[in-house]
């Protein structure tokens, strides 16, 4: 990581010497952006509804919230090309339910007996936060001059995804169950799966509209492919007593991240 940052600043010092690039001669581009997922893929693949906690009640709801804030700094090498580094934080969630059930499978302590349990329940979406650091390259289309006008961007980022609430709201019929809500809540998430690392491959289309001689307004679409590392390092269902095993969490998060493929964003750009 240190090397990436160091390399980036060396790059900045090199490109600042270039003569022809820039917006009114300004060659450094700082961008603050809001990105929201367009739920096209979820609709197409028919993600089932989950639950959200509203007024202390779990209510059925689509999995809508998926948004990011990003800041980036780009150094323009010439009229058509720039290199930048982006920091992005993404908030989204995944549905822990499958067929309105939670289930677990574990080996009973002191025996070889494999225990399988399932509970018909309502569980709130599990909130996630993803931090991404992404070196990127911006290329103008045709003879557009960066940062003005239509451009495309490519990036490959390193991501860390965290579960921000390991005790989601749960509701089930406790009268027919051996467990209380608190028991299930406390043992719901496999603690070894609270942080997942991976990659983000990004391709974006942007249109930047000049506002002043140093400020631009940006509209864009972004396509992101995700990859999570080390699936095999996470515990299988039978290896943990948690209701959501590490492997299960890995899979759910992996699927949910892919559904966030298509995004739209608006932003403000400051050049200096």
């Amino acid at each position, binding site marked *: 990581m240190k090397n990436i940052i160091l390399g980036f600043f060396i790059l900045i010092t090199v490109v600042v010497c270039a003569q022809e690039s820039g917006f009114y001669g300004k060659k450094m581009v700082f961008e603050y952006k809001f990105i929201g997922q367009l739920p*096209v893929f979820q609709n197409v693949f028919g993600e089932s509804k989950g639950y959200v906690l509203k007024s202390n009640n779990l209510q059925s709801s689509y999995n809508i919230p998926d948004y990011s804030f990003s800041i980036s700094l780009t150094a323009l090498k*010439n009229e058509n090309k720039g290199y930048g580094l982006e920091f992005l934080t993404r908030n989204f969630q995944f549905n822990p339910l499958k067929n309105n059930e939670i289930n677990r499978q574990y080996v009973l302590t002191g025996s070889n007996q494999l225990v399988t349990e399932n509970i018909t329940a309502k569980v709130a979406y599990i909130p996630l936060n993803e931090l991404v650091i992404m070196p990127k390259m911006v290329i103008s*289309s045709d*003879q557009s001059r960066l940062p*003005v006008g*239509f451009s495309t961007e490519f990036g490959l980022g390193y991501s860390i995804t965290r579960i921000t609430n390991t005790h989601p709201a749960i509701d089930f019929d406790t009268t027919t169950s051996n467990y209380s809500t608190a028991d299930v809540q406390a043992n719901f998430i496999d603690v070894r799966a609270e942080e997942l690392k991976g990659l983000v491959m990004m391709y974006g*289309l942007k*249109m930047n*509209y000049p506002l002043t001689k140093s400020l631009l307004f940006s509209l864009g679409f972004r*396509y992101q492919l995700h990859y999570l590392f080390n699936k095999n390092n996470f515990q299988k269902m039978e290896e943990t007593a948690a209701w959501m095993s590490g492997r299960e969490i890995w899979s759910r998060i992996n699927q949910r991240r892919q559904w966030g493929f298509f995004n739209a964003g608006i932003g403000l750009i400051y050049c200096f």
Partner: protein
Amino acid sequence: MNYYVLLISALFSTAIWGQTDFDHYSLLQSHGTIPADFSTPTQHKIKHTKDQRLAKLTPAKRKEFLTFSNYAIDELLHAGSVTYGDPVSQYITSIAQRLLKNDSVLFKKLRFYTINENNANAFSTNQGMVFVTTGLIAQMTSEAQLAFVLGHEIAHYSEGHVIDMFDYSTSNSGLSYKEKTRFFSKYSRQNELEADEIGVKYMHDAGYTSAEIEKTFDVLLYSYLPFEEIAFDKNYFTNQWMYVPEMVFNKPKVEISAAENYNDRFASHPNIATRKEEIQQKIDSLTAWENKSAFDQQTFEEVRNICRFEFVLNDVYNDNAIEALYGIYILEKQFPTSHFLRNCKSQIWLSHLTDFELEEDFSEYDYYADESEEFSEYDLGYEGQISVFAQGYSRLSHDSKMTMSLRIIRDNYLSDTTDRIASKLWNKAVELSAANTSFNIENYSKLTFNNAIIQFQKEKLKADSINKAVGQQQIKYNKYEAIKNSKTGFDNENGIDSTKFYLYALSDLMVDSSFLKLYASFSEGVDELESETDEFFDMTDEEQTDFYVSEYEQKLHIGMDSVLLLQPEINKLERYNRKNFEKSDQLTATFYDVTKSVTDDLNIKQINLNRADHFALTTADFNAIASFNRAIAKRSENETGNFIIDTEILDSLRKKYGTNELLFMELKSMNRHQISVPKLVAFSILFPIGVFYLPKMIFNNSSSNYVVKVLDLKKGELVVNESYFAFEPPTRKFMNARLNAIFHQLKQKK
């Protein structure tokens, strides 16, 4: 009273025409006060049109007609080829005045302008403007023919044919395209016959002879031919220094194929046979015809000569080498000492000295080799006497043309060494020869063709006598000597090889130390360039990329501190690439504002030479705009910097406006209107293609294409010619960012 006016105007006109110096011909330019047609903003014209004849159109049609006709005509008026107050326009006006001596009200409604182009054409507009091309007058043989054409065009105006035609063409919406074309054509032909009839009446009343009317149709029929039919002299190029074999031009002429009775079913005009037939009845119906083909034949011929000189010049500008050279050949018979014609000739020949000359058909063949080829003279497309010259010229080998170019340009220069254009042409010719890899100075003989023959005969006699003296009768063959001799235009058995006549055409230059010195100095420059090229090829890929980037970045670095901003060409195109005239006007106004603000910001002195301030435009400015437009258009086709003949004019304009750089910009903005409900539906179904395609479609809906051309007025060269296409709307902010970047780069020094 009319006669007095006519007399005074004739005297005045004669005074102007009498000054035409064809030896030092200067371009046809506008004179006098700029007419309102040229200075009034288009929107002003549209709003203040008071033509009762438009009342028959519906309000929507009237608006469409006024918008389109005014903008289209204004574009023509400011394109650079239309002149006012010049000798030709004055002459046309004086003839029109004679035709309308009984209808001064109508005459006052009309304005007469010249279009400087070689197509034979004339037309009138509903605003009362009558245009005649120089190409038409160049083809005529009498004033009466011009009078008939003018009468015809005046009739179109007086009868409101333009509005009629618009009304007719926009009606009948239920008809198919083919039906519309056919009916429209028929309607148009009826209007033409009506205009012919009225034109005859004007001719009759003005006192012209009816005999010239039919000849006018011959002018139209044969206007695709040169303005005279004169046999080409096969020895035209041969002089004391150069011998060009007659057999180069030994091909027979191609017969003229034009016919009067062609199919006019879809044409706007009836065929010539029909027109002649119809008009004869009208002529016969009128009695007491006068017998004048011209009221002043001398003036007619002078005006025609102006048009013919412009005809040649237009051909030079358009790179029509064969037409230009044949035109010069004709005019030289009347004006043998004309510097203008000589310089035009040199300019045409100069193109053969470039290394990358685009060869015309067949020219790669030696002309003797063509004898065995299936050579079709019809492929060249020339008919009549010009076809003889065209065939010979096209069959000349590249080496022959190159040498002839140098010879002709040299002879032109020597005919008057004080002629600055001729001198520049000569210098450029030597420079191009030195840079031309096909031109090998060592191959050229120090003997003229005739002297070489004499020399050969002498040597042959000497050799024969030696052979006889020693009793050797056997012929000795030597393959390598034969090859060597062949390259130097020598044939072992027959003497001088006449197909290599060009090798003897520069004999004076081969012993001229000043030429050899000049040639050597240019050659050194070429060697330096070659060594730079070698260095480039020795670079690594990375170094070559850096070199390219540096070259690209420095393209616009010309150190521009002040600029003469020429009228830009700004087009706002909408669906089906139709120009929205009103939006284009608004965009032009924005463009002016932005350039002003950008040049102020960057501290670049800006001088405007455009229609932004219509009423401030003078005739001198108008002429300058025309010259600049022509110069830029010419250099945009070919950026080699070899166009010389207008450099003196450009230099004088540089001094007049006090800046070295002339900037011409084009902005073409397109709104594709590509987002539509069916497309959205289609690409929603075609998921996931739509996920990629739709955003791109939204962003790429608007595009702007900027073209930047900078003409260095001192060198006469186009130093910048760049185009920038981007998917961005042409708003003020986008334009400001773009122009700021461009002007900033132009200000940088290399």
